[in-house]
């Protein structure tokens, strides 16, 4: 586990830090843009910035863009971390570790890194502006958001295993983002937390069941 997590963190720092910093910067700018437009710091602006209540029927184009951008970042990070082991360190890892363990550790690593990015986002936006509104309900909402991201990432990995004809991560990311917008529920606010939790665990179990297909399909397409 230590190898996979350190390997992944090193990859993010050395190869993806610009993407992460850009995301945090853009989200912060978007937040302050909304504050300027709204002349307030209503809690709804927080939801808008973090895309917690997005609906493509009601959202404005900027909110849609921000939602798409956020989901893209988390999907791209998940796919990059997943495929990099297959591309560059296969003989280091896979001759030493059982595939199921690798999948489990990899998913855990992807989720830890995504959580760290989300926490940075929360620190940048919530701490300076919403300290007085911190409540149990808000913590639950933020936790639901984290779980929602995890669930999206797990579903994406399953889809990658089944439809892994793509040689590069980018076109696949675009298709998956579009699928996410039009197929999955997009408002974390209205989602049932227990349901997300159950689906999350189910997605992990499913990934462990299809691990053989996952590995062969993804490996050969890379």
């Amino acid at each position: 586990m230590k190898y996979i997590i350190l390997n992944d963190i090193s990859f993010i720092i050395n190869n993806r830090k610009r993407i992460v910093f850009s995301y945090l910067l853009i989200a912060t700018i978007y937040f302050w843009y909304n504050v300027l437009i709204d002349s307030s710091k209503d809690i709804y602006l927080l939801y808008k910035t973090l895309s917690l209540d997005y609906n493509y029927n009601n959202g404005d184009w900027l909110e849609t863009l921000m939602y798409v951008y956020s989901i893209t970042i988390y999907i791209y990070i998940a796919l990059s971390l997943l495929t990099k082991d297959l591309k560059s360190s296969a003989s280091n890892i896979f001759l030493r570790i059982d595939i199921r363990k690798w999948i489990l550790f990899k998913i855990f690593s992807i989720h830890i890194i995504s959580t760290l990015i989300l926490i940075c986002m929360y620190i940048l936006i919530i701490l300076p502006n919403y300290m007085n509104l911190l409540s149990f309900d808000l913590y639950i909402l933020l936790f639901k958001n984290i779980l929602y991201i995890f669930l999206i990432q797990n579903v994406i990995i399953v889809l990658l295993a089944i439809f892994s004809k793509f040689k590069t991560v980018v076109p696949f990311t675009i298709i998956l983002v579009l699928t996410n917008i039009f197929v999955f529920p997009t408002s974390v606010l209205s989602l049932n937390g227990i349901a997300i939790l159950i689906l999350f665990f189910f997605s992990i179990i499913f990934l462990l069941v299809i691990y053989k297909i996952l590995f062969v399909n993804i490996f050969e397409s890379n």
Partner: protein
Amino acid sequence: MKIEIRNVSKLFNGVDIIKDVNMNFESNKIYGLIGRNGSGKSVLLKMLCGFYDTTKGEILFDGVNVIKHKTFPPNTRALIEKPFFLPDLTGYENLELLASIQKKIGRDEILLALEKVKLIEEKDKKFSKYSLGMKQKLGIAQVLMENPTIMIFDEPFNGIEEKTANELRNVLKEEAKKNKIIIIASHIKDDIDNLCDEVYKLDNGIIIDYYKK
């Protein structure tokens, strides 16, 4: 230990990369796969490691088709393509991190592997500061350090100066005597001729020659 490649073919996007190949590997020998770039050597090695499925045929490890069971061959280590390590860790730390996956070895074995590849003096240098030859040596060290039964190398002496390459060839000859199978792919005939007991020559995915030394 015995590895049998029986009537193996591999198709990628409708193109035959490996066509009906038969090979046998036994312990205490070093085998060479020689062929120009694109002859199918790397694909064959990846199939041996279990990274690619066969389109046809089977690969047996002591009679067991590990590929069919979607597991990896037992007690096997490989250096295929460029060696990959974490740039901010030292050579030693990288090997220590890899060794932590199976926890089969400790500091002594790691240092021994670094000694064998003549990298002991540079063990505390960050991997990002290594030359191409040093990176390649570290890749070889990660193969040697856990004392595997099967060792697979793809162009292992790339970027390594001749004197060190000769020393490494001697290391591999000694390793093979310890009941191991060593398979080396190279497009350089000298690498194979100076080292291997049996040689398969590939071109366009088929074996065009086979000889014993």
